[in-house]
């Protein structure tokens, strides 16, 4: 426990708000190969935390630990504790399905279900029983789309397939789908990497709006994006957490020379 505190402090990231996710000494193995080495960090609520680092540094793997998406990968094994609201998500008693309804996820490539826009949003609330009748469900769909900034664009064609939207719209649809189940944490795995700059700007705006209500963790390969949207930034390298702290500090005055090198573009 003390070690964790120490590392968090050496990473220089005292949370500004209440802690939402508390990760303690997390190791991840793919079969025999270790992908994440003893990473601890605390992620505050109602803010955006960015994970940056070169490709293959483990930032996505780490992100996927938080909602146990690594369970779906054959041979993956997670050690250590990830505590959300006092419960370790890796506890065998925790149902990953319920966990994922509280920790939503947006993926790298927009992946709407090949169904109507309406059904894309309504799927989550349906399986979790969040709506008692059709009117309530309609409300959730409208609310989610509105919050994802997509309502005005699609309200007249809710029955048309979600796959027919543009890339940026699809990704906002996926965000709307994630918030429709009313999660507490939203994980975003490079949500803009497949999008053009205009669509990216809209998503970034949206992320900034959503910060008011959710704890958002975003993996990005773009440092500018991390600087623009996040309040905390964590720098990963070769499966290790090199530095974690306030975004402004990280980008202006990094503590670690490796971070300095990466931010100024000398490697990665």
């Amino acid at each position, binding site marked *: 426990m003390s070690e964790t505190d120490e590392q968090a402090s050496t990473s220089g990231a005292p949370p500004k708000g209440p802690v939402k996710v508390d990760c303690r000494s997390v190791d991840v193995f793919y079969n025999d190969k270790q992908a994440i080495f003893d990473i601890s960090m605390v992620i505050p609520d109602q803010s955006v935390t960015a994970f940056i680092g070169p490709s293959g540094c483990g930032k996505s793997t780490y992100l996927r630990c938080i909602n146990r998406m690594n369970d779906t990968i054959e041979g993956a094994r997670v050690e250590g504790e990830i505590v959300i609201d006092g419960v370790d998500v890796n506890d065998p008693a925790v*149902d990953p*399905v*319920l966990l994922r309804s509280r920790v939503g996820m947006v993926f790298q490539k927009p992946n709407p279900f090949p169904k109507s826009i309406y059904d894309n949003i309504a799927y989550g609330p349906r*399986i*979790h*029983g969040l709506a008692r009748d059709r009117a309530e469900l309609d409300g959730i769909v409208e609310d989610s789309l509105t919050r994802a900034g997509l309502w005005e664009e699609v309200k007249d064609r809710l029955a048309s397939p979600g796959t027919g939207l543009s890339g940026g719209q699809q990704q906002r649809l996926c965000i709307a789908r994630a918030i429709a189940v009313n999660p507490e944490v939203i994980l975003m795995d490079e949500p803009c990497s497949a999008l053009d700059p205009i669509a990216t700007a809209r998503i970034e705006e949206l992320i900034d709006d959503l910060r008011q209500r959710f704890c958002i963790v975003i993996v990005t390969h773009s440092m500018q994006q991390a600087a623009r949207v996040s309040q905390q930034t964590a720098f990963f390298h070769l499966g290790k957490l090199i530095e974690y702290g306030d975004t402004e500090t990280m980008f202006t005055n990094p503590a670690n020379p490796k971070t300095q090198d990466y931010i100024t573009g000398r490697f990665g």
Partner: protein
Amino acid sequence: MGWLAFTVLAAAGLTAFLVGRGAGDALAADSSARMNSQPNYHGYYVAMWTVVPAAASILAYAIFGEGFVRSVLASELPDGFDSLNAFERTQYLDRAAAALRLPTTGQPLFDAVVARYGELRGAVKLAFLLAAAALAALGFVLSRRRIAADFRARLNVEGGIQAALFVSAAIAIATTVGIVVSLLYESFQFFTRVSLFDFLFGLEWNAQTNTDFGAVPLFFGTFAISLIAMAVAAPIGLYAAIYLSEYASPRMRGWVKPVLEVLAGIPTVVYGFFAILVVAPLVRSAALWINGLPFTPPELLAAQPASALAAGLVMGVMIIPFVSSLSDDVINAVPQTLRDGAYAMGATKSETVKQVVLPAALPGVIAALLLAVSRAIGETMIVTMAAGQRAQISVDPTSDITTITAQIVSLLTGDSEFDNSKTLSAFALGFVLFLVTLCFNLIALRVVQRYREKYD
């Protein structure tokens, strides 16, 4: 009986589902804590435990009930029946079973047996039905009691679903095991009567008369017909595949490939009819014509109305699509870069194909040919209908000849008892057939897999 049981079970399942879901709904309405599972899953859970054990009981009756009734009845038969062998006793019981629906015959013993049969059948059926009802009730009560806000109904239901999925996958294994065990068992019975050596190396086959069981003529016939078939299918199939993958325009591919697949989709009995109706007479008249040529001896060719050549030719046509579509796949899998390398050196298209593409695709092509051979060896109807029935070793392709598969059909068609060498020999032949095709298939699948890994 079947439909009634099905309806009752379905109704019970539906009721159980509604009860379970109702309980779930009630919990969701008044418990402040979040429910672990949706009310629907509570319904599924109760329905699952109500229906599955009861259905298993009914299924057990369907599979074992009649056998049980018969074994009890057989043990109760008076002493005189001991003189009957197993097959005769089975036939007797068959007759009794059929007589259940008919008016009494007036023979006191038989009528008594029939009456007792009906009695036993009714009792066993009742017992199983009662057991099913008890299981359903028990399952319903126990599962209903477990419903609570924090009960993980969904996990339980999903566990049940996965168990069902696993059982389905295991049926594939069970089939393989069933084939191997049944063939082994019956073959073993056969080899207690006929020596393995005589079977494998004997030159005389007269199974219909229960005398000679030397299978070499059958092996020879199978080999000869497969050889003829491959002589037709291998060149045509391979050249067609090469042309389609290297030369043909996409439009031509688009309509030639389905046409070739039609050849594979035609039932073999149709090929058999075609062989005996059209090809065999052609072969015969060609053979007679050759016999009649001035420089050939008049008895050169046997010119039988059914011949190895007729069956082999038609089988070859049937196998063309197997060769061509598999070869087409492997040739397409050869990377374009290899071809580009050859073209860049000034090779013509055919030189590229012969010297670069085919050597690269060779393992895959060989696998395709092996699978085609395995198909030819196992093909039954064409040889049954068009190759004749005479077990002989003859290099004359216009003579009639028989194969492993054709013999299996002729030995097992009609009423077959399982206690004579004639019937059992069919299983020994089947076992040989299974082993040989298994080897071909395994090698071919192995080679294809390796080949895919190489270029994927």
